[in-house]
């Protein structure tokens, strides 16, 4: 697949002296859904804003569809759709007017049918003559998405599209993203909802303090870092781990009531059986047991935490 977004050695130091991006290098393939995760202030919005021409980079280069965003900005920007994090709309315009306006701004000839289709796909058709200020927050967000899609972009940036959005709209949004992907649109989204990245993304990037600390295919990431936990609720608390069980990676909680076994999902399953047999032989009995799989969120929190510890 071809690279549609190529970011090389991109840095940004704001006038305040704050470095929001250390050199970031990232290549996004055409047609993929890429989720950018990171805590508040990590630099996600800064990165997106530079690609879209809203923030000037301090160093580095960005190309979109092979066009340099500063030298060939016209060609590059025509390919990009942006839904920014902050709600910003022209309150007194109607939904229809603001959407056709956006299409024109991006150099597209008028196309009523296309605008209609876009509005319909976002359930905005009934509201087409409503002034934006009369819409609810969620509806306004739909309007912003319509504005970003109406000029038929090939690369779509969704900066926290589901922040403060109800379940229904979030589901709609996911459906829309899948539809767009069917059409070959590349989507880069930032989110704080890990399940969103888990659900949607092909690849995940984690950014922390302006550094891209990890870029991985989601499944690989889950497999590589994903661990399962087997938790046993003991009948009688243990004061310490029996030496006979040292070959397993075990942990006891403070009360000695819960015994936790962490194992790699790739490890052989009879390991668990062996552990249970070992417990049996030692006469340790348990009332209940269950397993948990670590989610992307656990991975993410671990990653960021370990980074912060090293920093």
């Amino acid at each position: 697949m071809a690279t549609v977004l190529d970011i090389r050695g991109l840095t940004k130091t704001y006038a305040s002296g704050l470095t929001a991006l250390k050199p970031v290098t990232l290549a996004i393939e055409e047609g993929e859904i890429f989720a950018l995760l990171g805590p508040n202030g990590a630099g996600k919005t800064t990165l997106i804003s530079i690609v879209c021409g809203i923030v000037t980079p301090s160093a580095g280069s960005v190309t979109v569809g092979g066009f340099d965003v500063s030298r060939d900005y016209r060609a590059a920007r025509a390919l990009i759709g942006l839904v920014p994090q902050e709600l910003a709309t022209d309150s007194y315009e109607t939904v229809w007017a603001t959407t056709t306006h956006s299409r024109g701004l991006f150099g597209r000839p008028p196309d009523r049918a296309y605008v209609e289709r876009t509005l319909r796909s976002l359930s905005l058709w009934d509201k087409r003559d409503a002034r934006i200020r009369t819409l609810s927050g969620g509806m306004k967000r739909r309007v912003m998405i319509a504005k970003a899609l109406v000029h038929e972009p090939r690369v779509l940036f969704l900066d926290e599209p589901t922040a403060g959005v109800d379940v229904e709209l979030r589901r709609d949004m996911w459906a829309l993203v899948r539809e767009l992907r069917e059409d070959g649109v590349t989507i880069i989204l930032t989110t704080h909802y890990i399940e969103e990245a888990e659900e949607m993304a092909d690849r995940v990037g984690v950014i922390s303090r302006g550094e891209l600390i990890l870029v991985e295919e989601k499944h690989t990431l889950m497999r590589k870092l994903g661990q399962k936990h087997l938790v046993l609720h003991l009948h009688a608390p243990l004061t310490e781990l029996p030496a006979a069980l040292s070959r397993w990676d075990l942990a006891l909680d403070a009360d000695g009531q819960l015994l936790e076994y962490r194992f790699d999902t790739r490890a052989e399953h009879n390991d668990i059986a062996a552990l249970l047999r070992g417990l049996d032989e030692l006469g340790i009995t348990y009332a209940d047991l269950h397993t948990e799989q670590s989610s992307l969120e656990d991975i993410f929190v671990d990653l960021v935490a370990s980074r912060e510890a090293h920093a």
Partner: protein
Amino acid sequence: MNGVARFNHHGVWAIYKFEMGRTLRTLLQSIATPVITTSLYFVVFGSAIGGRMANVDGVPYGAFIVPGLIMLAVLTESLSNASFAIYLPKFTGTIYELLSAPLSPFEIVLAYVGAATTKSLLLGLLILATARLFVPLEIAHPVWMLAFLLLTAVAFCLFGFVLGIWANGWEQLQFVPMLVITPLTFLGGSFYSINMLPPTWQTVALFNPVVYLVSGFRWSFFDKGDVAVGVSLAFVSGFLAVCLLMVWWIFRSGYRLKT
């Protein structure tokens, strides 16, 4: 890749239409207010005072003040329209779309300043038509009249554009028109010929840029001005060039547009 034109005329047209639409929505403010104000000026200055005034430079006072009044309205409206037009998206945050659109700085300025200039020209002509209801008027150099009107409108719309980008708050947006432009306009010979001032003040008046604008514009009506028409023309053109330079610099440096 999709065909990317050398000139984004759809984009320019979109902004122009958007801005003109905003005017229509606020028609009362944009057009009615200046027209009413001007009519009041005529009632007060033209009729009440003018009746007691001798001719100025051989022109009846009521007619004499027409070019000045038009200039006054065009200057202030150009400034406030153009500055507001670009300040508003900065204020509401919708400027993100403008900055991320495939538009060159020239196209952005063309669209915004073009729309603001259109409004100013319409306003100027509307005031002229209103004035005709009060006083009989003949225009000696109609083409020059339009040229002066256009040049002034473009220059002050550009200046307004710069002001709107510079302003970081509503107070700042009001500050320049209130504290700088309004006094300059009132002291700019709109209601009198600077020849009527004492000699010292005549010299001071020559440092007032508005004097040159009003004088040139008045020349196009009555074939007479306070200063030579060439000087007026050179002045307006010079001011236009300075505004263009400021706009060019703003886009080059991203000043107060991009962080």
